[in-house]
């Protein structure tokens, strides 16, 4: 059977419908860093941040079509690695993949660790005072990491059955508070829905807010690997992405407008220019304004469970992935070690625990660093996006003959738009009042280390040309190599037939 036939057969297998695709696009609305980013973004930018969010939605939409095309050419388990490897070679593939997964985890995981405790306890005045006197409420997040790391080491799966309740609870909480905040009498007189921007409304200012706005839509490209499996994917996929992104945006707009209407953004520190909405303290104020004494308790409990569940997710997922990478030979063999009784990857769990804990300890749990971490994560994430886009463009030019079950419409306009947008977003990523070095330096250091590792791994260990793109046919042949039936040269011979 030719590679074309095998690919067609693969694409026809296990089709899913539009609802599944839509469910996949709607993600982590109530993750603590996302809420704080939204609060801060609307706080400093007001209507300018709302415009930045709209720009981010369109950019993400354009980027998602690129991911969808890549997934339809290479429906492999390697995903991002394979896309970049076939477009630009192993060096960029390793750097891009580690940037997308590991560096994002280093920054965003640390932000979640620090914030999960802070966001929960800030709603309980007495507990917060107690925690601060004991070293800081952020230590609760570190405690979560340690507790869930240990539970996972013993093979205990917390929250396993509560996913739907938690997800539903988060959505309900955010929407209830948002809608109540909108319909209640305003505590603040605003110009427009989101109020005036404290930092101006010129183009450069809006661009400087796009980086923060992009973080709202983290994970929106999750739907793209579905593209080959979607019934009528050419229509269903963009529809799912548009609806998914707009649902997230709508939820955030409601929350942002409600927050601005109900909480006065008072100046807390004239020297540093810190306003109330720049801090987690805005959350209990908002909750109390909307729902009285019960509000902060509700939000506090919500954040407590959301933070704990998110951290548990990291502790359950990351170690298994590290184990899988070790099985594939991408990490040293020692990472395949499993505990004799519980069959849990202890070393992998230890590494997954140490990364956010040590990073949070290094930063002293200071919430002033959260936005730097979030924006550094956005840089890492944007870098990987750029490499995927470049690879898809290169493959379109170099290999127009490849079978593509989904083709990005209006090529290359979405690619140009998303890439220019991402580059501008990265260039102007520092919002007014922040030091660019606090974002660029940690990101550059991490990216540099990753690049050095990629170069060493390809040149010294794998002994291959790091910049030679892999053949799509070879990557697919490897993916399908265990399929029954003859599959030797047939893959390569028939690859040039377009679907």
């Amino acid at each position, binding site marked *: 059977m030719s590679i074309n036939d095998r690919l067609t057969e693969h694409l026809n297998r296990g089709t899913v419908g539009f609802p599944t695709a839509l469910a996949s696009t709607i993600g982590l609305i109530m993750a603590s860093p996302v809420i704080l980013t939204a609060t801060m973004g609307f706080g400093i930018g007001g209507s300018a941040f709302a415009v930045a969010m709209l720009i981010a939605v369109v950019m993400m939409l354009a980027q998602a079509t690129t991911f969808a095309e890549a997934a339809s050419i290479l429906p492999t388990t390697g995903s991002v690695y394979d896309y970049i490897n076939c477009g630009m070679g192993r060096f960029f593939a390793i750097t891009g993949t580690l940037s997308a997964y590991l560096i994002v985890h280093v920054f965003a995981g640390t932000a979640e660790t620090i914030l999960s405790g802070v966001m929960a306890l800030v709603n309980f005045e007495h507990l917060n005072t107690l925690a601060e006197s004991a070293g800081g409420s952020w230590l609760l997040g570190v405690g979560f990491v340690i507790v869930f790391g240990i539970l996972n080491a013993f093979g205990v799966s917390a929250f396993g059955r509560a996913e739907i309740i938690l997800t539903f609870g988060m959505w309900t909480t955010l929407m209830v508070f948002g809608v109540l905040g909108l319909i209640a009498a305003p505590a603040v007189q605003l110009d427009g829905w989101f109020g005036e921007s404290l930092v101006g409304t010129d183009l450069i200012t809006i661009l400087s807010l796009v980086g923060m706005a992009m973080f709202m839509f983290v994970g929106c490209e999750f739907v793209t690997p579905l593209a080959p499996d979607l019934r009528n994917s050419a229509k269903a996929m963009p529809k799912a992405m548009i609806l998914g992104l707009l649902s997230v945006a709508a939820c955030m707009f409601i929350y942002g407008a409600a927050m601005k209407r109900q909480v006065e953004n008072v100046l807390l520190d004239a020297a540093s220019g810190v306003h109330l909405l720049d801090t987690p303290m805005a959350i209990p104020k908002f909750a109390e304004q909307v729902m009285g004494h019960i509000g902060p308790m509700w939000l506090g409990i919500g954040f407590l469970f959301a933070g704990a569940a998110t951290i548990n997710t990291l502790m359950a997922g990351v170690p298994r992935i590290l184990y899988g990478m070790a099985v594939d030979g991408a990490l040293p063999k020692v990472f395949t070690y499993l505990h004799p009784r519980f069959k849990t990857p202890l070393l992998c769990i230890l590494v997954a625990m140490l990364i956010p804990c040590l990073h949070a300890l290094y930063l002293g749990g200071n919430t002033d660093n959260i936005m730097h971490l979030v924006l550094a994560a956005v840089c890492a994430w944007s870098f990987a996006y750029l490499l995927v886009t470049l690879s898809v463009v290169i493959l379109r030019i170099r290999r127009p003959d490849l079978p593509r079950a989904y083709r990005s419409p209006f090529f290359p306009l979405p690619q140009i738009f998303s890439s220019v947008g991402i580059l501008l977003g990265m260039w102007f990523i520092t919002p007014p009042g922040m030091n660019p070095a606090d974002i660029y330096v940690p990101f550059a250091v991490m990216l540099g280390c990753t690049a050095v590792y990629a170069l060493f791994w390809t040149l010294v260990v794998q002994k291959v040309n790091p910049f030679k793109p892999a053949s799509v046919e070879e990557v697919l042949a490897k993916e399908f190599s265990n*399929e029954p039936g003859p599959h030797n040269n047939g893959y390569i011979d028939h690859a040039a037939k377009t679907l």
Partner: protein
Amino acid sequence: MSQVPITTGISTMLQKLSELFSARRAPAGYRPGVTLGHLRRNLGLTSFEQTEPTAARASVEDGSLQMEIVEHTESQLLMHLVMTEFVIRVPALTEGTASFELHHSGAVRRTGIRCRQRAGDTALLAGLQASLQEDGALHQALMPLDFKRLRIDLDGRQWCVRLEHMGGSEVVNRMPAFRRYIALSREQRNGLLEALSGLQRVLRIL
């Protein structure tokens, strides 16, 4: 106005809510059969037939071992795991009811195979333990095998072995957004098939 449509409507709504919050509900974004597809390519068995969206039947080339493979999920917040379970059924010589769980012993390194009885006829335990020790090939296959769960049930005149391996699973994550299949290495794949064959051999005469 008739009350029947209202009652039906409420009943439908309650049914839908019950399904929504049911523990058995599939996680959002779960694609039944995708992990099985990866496993099919990973195992490279000549005979592999998907019988249901989440189940397949496979056998080794000479037909001496036939197994069912079932996909099941474990939900986490914004992430889910898809695991696969290998099931073999063997006719039993004697009728009875029993349930056993096998796991490796040892604190840091694997020192042996321990068999724990969960329910049923206690006389069978000694026989099963002895068989596991005496069958050298089975013992050799089980020791390095990264099985997460291994359960042996006797129900009437049939043994049922359920083995969940660490590999052959998939992590589907939303933040960061990706999915990754955890492969069975060649050694683990061979060990898995040898272990299942060995268990089939032992249980046939127990």
